[in-house]
């Protein structure tokens, strides 16, 4: 009788295709989004995250079309992010079949968007995505992280913990936290980052960035207290299946949804 921990494949979308890069660079094609989504749905993914990493204004309509195509066939929760700038963007994506909308850059440049969208559509569908990087020189004794935007290219100088608290106070229902230091490295989550946020915010946290093994997923949940774990490359390139990941977690005592 318990809430299952979620395993969430992340589909980075660029020009209508799923891609995966190392530290947001060197992008490799990983397939057609609808086919990838359907395959994950069949194998028991708990949710799917689509991030439009091109995020230019000229192809935002195509993301709505893509979500509509996926939502017509895939009956699990869909989260969409990338290039979301306004309440109108949020509304359009929800109407296309998205359940949650992730905001990142726009949440920092115009934080009232979080208040507006959570008031209109409910906190439960507003995810604030935070790209965090350790401050150079900060040690494990007193680690510090700063918030990056624009796909990890721009340092805002904001302290991650401080921004996380503000985002939740403004109405974020969930945080999607990516360690820029670990993303694409397959060296595991930044567990200190997750532990730090777990202590300071009361909403669910989705851990992202660095998964290279099934043990990394277990660590994120057990040691990092993450409510959900996000991964891309280990699933896209067939290193592990969702089912294998869930069976591994069950053996580590983590509650997961094994059906269907």
């Amino acid at each position: 009788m318990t809430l299952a921990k979620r395993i969430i494949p992340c589909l980075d979308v660029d020009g209508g295709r799923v891609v995966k890069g190392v530290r947001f660079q060197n992008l490799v094609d990983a397939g057609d989004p609808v086919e990838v989504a359907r395959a994950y749905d069949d194998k028991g993914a708990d949710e799917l995250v689509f991030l439009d990493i091109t995020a230019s204004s000229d192809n935002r309509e195509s993301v709505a079309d893509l979500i509509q195509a996926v939502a017509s066939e895939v009956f699990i929760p869909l989260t969409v992010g990338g290039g979301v700038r306004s309440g109108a963007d949020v509304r359009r994506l929800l109407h296309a079949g998205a359940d949650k909308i992730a905001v990142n850059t726009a949440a920092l440049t115009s934080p009232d968007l979080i208040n507006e969208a959570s008031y209109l559509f409910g906190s439960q569908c507003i995810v604030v995505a935070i790209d965090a990087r350790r401050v150079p020189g900060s040690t494990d004794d007193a680690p510090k992280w700063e918030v990056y935007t624009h796909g990890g290219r721009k340092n805002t100088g904001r302290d991650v913990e401080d921004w996380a608290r503000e985002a939740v106070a403004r109405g974020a229902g969930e945080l999607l936290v990516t360690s820029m230091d670990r993303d694409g490295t397959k060296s595991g989550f930044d567990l200190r980052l997750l532990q730090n946020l777990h202590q300071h915010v009361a909403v669910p946290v989705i851990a992202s960035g660095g998964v290279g093994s099934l043990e990394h997923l277990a660590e994120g949940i057990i040691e990092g207290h993450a409510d959900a774990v996000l991964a891309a490359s280990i699933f896209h390139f067939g290193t592990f299946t969702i089912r294998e990941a869930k069976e591994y977690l069950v053996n580590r005592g983590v509650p997961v949804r094994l059906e269907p």
Partner: protein
Amino acid sequence: MGSIAVIDYGMGNLFSIVKALEHVAVNDSIVLTSDADDLERASHIVLPGVGAIRECMAELKRLDLVKPIRELAPRKPFLGICLGLQAVLGFSDENDGVEALNLIKGRVRLFDQALQDEAGEPIRIPHIGWNQIYPTISHPLWNGINPGAYFYFVHSYYAPDNVEGRAASTVYGLDFSSALTKGTIFAVQFHPEKSHTTGLKFLSNFVHWNPVPQSS
């Protein structure tokens, strides 16, 4: 062949519930509507919803749907989903307190941050993710749904265990009512349209449900 009316009051993701109903009711027409005449003509009515209760009730009033829903819900199969469950109750604590449709007696409450999970950790709010439901009554809508089946939830407010017509129990910090029923009305806190094959089985049960209307 019938028609299933999905009430459109401009909030949230209605696309998915329409697609899921099309998936399980291939011979029926699915009508996304805010027109009371469509509700009158329909064989089944669905009140979906995400978002906040004050906006929900304000929109239903603005669209002149409160009276038709109150009249029709006790006469034909009616399914409330998520906010739709909270709307069929009498009152919600959300948004400083809002009077709702009062089709079933009960008061919707906010999860308390002091509640703890099995591990003794404070629960996270909202309640987001896959949780287990345990039917508390035998009902046609539970056909093929096992006790402990996982459904997808996303909400911060809940119907307590002592509301009228409890049909299923779920635990999140406390035992709450994840489904309610009274006559032709059924309401669920989870999202069947987002709950994979288990959710589609539940929706299939709903579209094939022919309950006896309540005598008024």
